[in-house]
């Protein structure tokens, strides 16, 4: 006898994950796993934390979000659609020939501040934004969302040093700590741990949260910085979150879903399937 679970509440996170899955289907491909892990991080930033206005995406007083892990683009587009920056039709437009919604974001799309995709560029850009914000005397903040594998790029640590040395407390880095990169666990490919201690030793305030718990994220991201210190939020996440059969799977990095796979994924999201935990 099987128990049919009740239909899942149609939350923002579910709608966002549905869009992400859609963008990996219909003849298109996308960075599925690392976009699914980002959902709560980006939703919390856009809906609860950042000072942004979808009717004025170029507002000079807005907070800045840099998706340094540019391969999370479909996660960003899905959240931008959820928050009114992009029309729902953008989801169908992703990857269409001649369009500008690419697998890595390029400016020209509301909410995309800078082109990213080559890893290790977001934090240096954030250093520049934060310097400008300080010179302007503006009460703005710059959020830089990084992948954990991305932290293997040396430029991240150049910028980490610069942000601390120049006391750039308007920068908040968020690490999507899903633990996986293309060929395997980060700790097997090029170990990052002790990650919190690394950031702390570079002069950053470190906050570690469950990256799928919006209350924890909201608290960590909203808390004012320690004066003169940049903040990093290490958001512990699950690559492929929301699709139990791809969660924590290395092969979830990039997916091109056929019609049956797409239907299976959408059904799993509708049911709110949970991964079986050991």
């Amino acid at each position, binding site marked *: 006898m099987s128990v049919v679970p009740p239909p899942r509440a149609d939350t923002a996170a579910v709608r966002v994950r549905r869009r992400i899955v859609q963008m990996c289907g219909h003849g298109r491909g996308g960075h599925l796993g690392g976009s699914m892990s980002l959902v709560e991080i980006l939703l919390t930033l856009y809906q609860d934390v950042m000072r942004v206005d979808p009717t004025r995406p170029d507002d*000079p007083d807005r907070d*800045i979000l840099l998706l340094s892990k540019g391969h999370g683009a479909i996660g960003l587009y899905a959240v931008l659609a959820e928050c009114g920056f992009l029309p729902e039709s953008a989801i169908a437009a992703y990857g269409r020939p001649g369009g500008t919604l690419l697998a890595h974001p*390029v*400016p020209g799309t509301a909410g995309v*501040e*800078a*082109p990213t*995709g*080559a890893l*290790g*560029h977001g*934090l*240096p*850009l*954030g*250093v*520049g*934004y*934060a*310097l*400008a*914000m300080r*010179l*302007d005397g503006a009460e703005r903040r*710059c959020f830089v969302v990084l992948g954990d594998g991305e932290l293997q790029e*040396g*430029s991240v640590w*150049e*910028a980490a*040093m*610069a942000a601390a*040395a*120049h006391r750039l407390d308007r920068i908040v880095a968020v690490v999507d700590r899903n633990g996986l990169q293309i060929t395997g666990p980060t700790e097997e490919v090029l170990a990052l741990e002790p990650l919190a201690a690394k950031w702390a030793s570079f002069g950053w305030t470190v906050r570690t949260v469950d990256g799928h718990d919006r209350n924890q994220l909201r608290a960590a991201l909203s808390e004012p910085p320690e004066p003169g210190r940049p903040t990093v939020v290490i958001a512990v996440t699950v690559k492929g979150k929301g699709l139990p059969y791809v969660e924590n799977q290395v092969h979830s990095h990039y997916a091109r879903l056929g019609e049956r796979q797409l239907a299976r994924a959408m059904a799993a999201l509708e049911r709110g399937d949970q991964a079986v935990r050991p």
Partner: protein
Amino acid sequence: MSGTGPPDRPAREVCAELVAELMLADERLVCLDSDTGQFARVDFGAAADRYVNLGIAEQNLLGAAAGLARAGRIPIVHTMATFAATRALEAVKIDVAFGGLPVHIVATHGGLSAGSLGPSHHALEDVAVLRTLPNLRVVVPADAADAACLLRQCLAGPGPSYLRLGREATPRLPPRLPPVRLGRAQVLRPVGGDVTIVGCGPHPVRLAMEAADALAACGIAATVLDMHTVKPLDVAALTAAAGNGTVLTVEDHWAAGGLGSAVAECLAERGIARVRRIGAPDRFFPFAGEHGDLLERAGVTVDRVVATARAMLAEAPRRP
């Protein structure tokens, strides 16, 4: 290699002082340094908060410049030529050039000017590498006064620039009229000569003029262009000057990919002239010596320009 002009000050010193002066007048300007030591004696006065030394970290330097530019500032970035062109290339490409952002890279130690500092500090590839990037101006001034003049013009224009300077003082060139203009080749010996010499940078432009004088003594008239703006190339001036069908280029750069290649591409595609390139040969230069010593060793000399011009004319005059 001796200069013909009076002693000059290093272009990098002149530009550093100019940057400080311009920053007082324009609050958008921000000076980003990478611990070059260039600003040790520069007084920024009321603009001191807009001088930021980001340390020895050139990728962050160029990325931060792009962030500042996206936030409405106009960064002037100081590093050595080879570090901008190679170590920080990806940031120059994606963060700066792709966005067409007003980031202005003032690069020192161009070409072989680093002398005994060796191949790690020589920049014989920078023009080749950077002129492939869309939106980025590539500018190689011929002396300190031109460098200051061209820097002002870069800052006044939209989009990013790469201004390639040397290390030590180089000879001041005689006053030339009209004053140097960004994007316009300067005609130093009139169009209509038997041969056309196109150069850029302090020593090459000077030795192009010296070669023209030597050729004149042999009854050969040489047109000389200072192609200080390698990108965008002044195609109109070049094609007009190449009407004699015989063009040679001279530069402090590997012969591959630099000014000579830009000129050859332009003229070959138009079927206008035969071209010979004088630049550093396809090798490194791990030798002690001053800038001039290394240029001699690389064969970037007056004698070679003269001999090449004579050989080309002796092969087959190609006056249309």
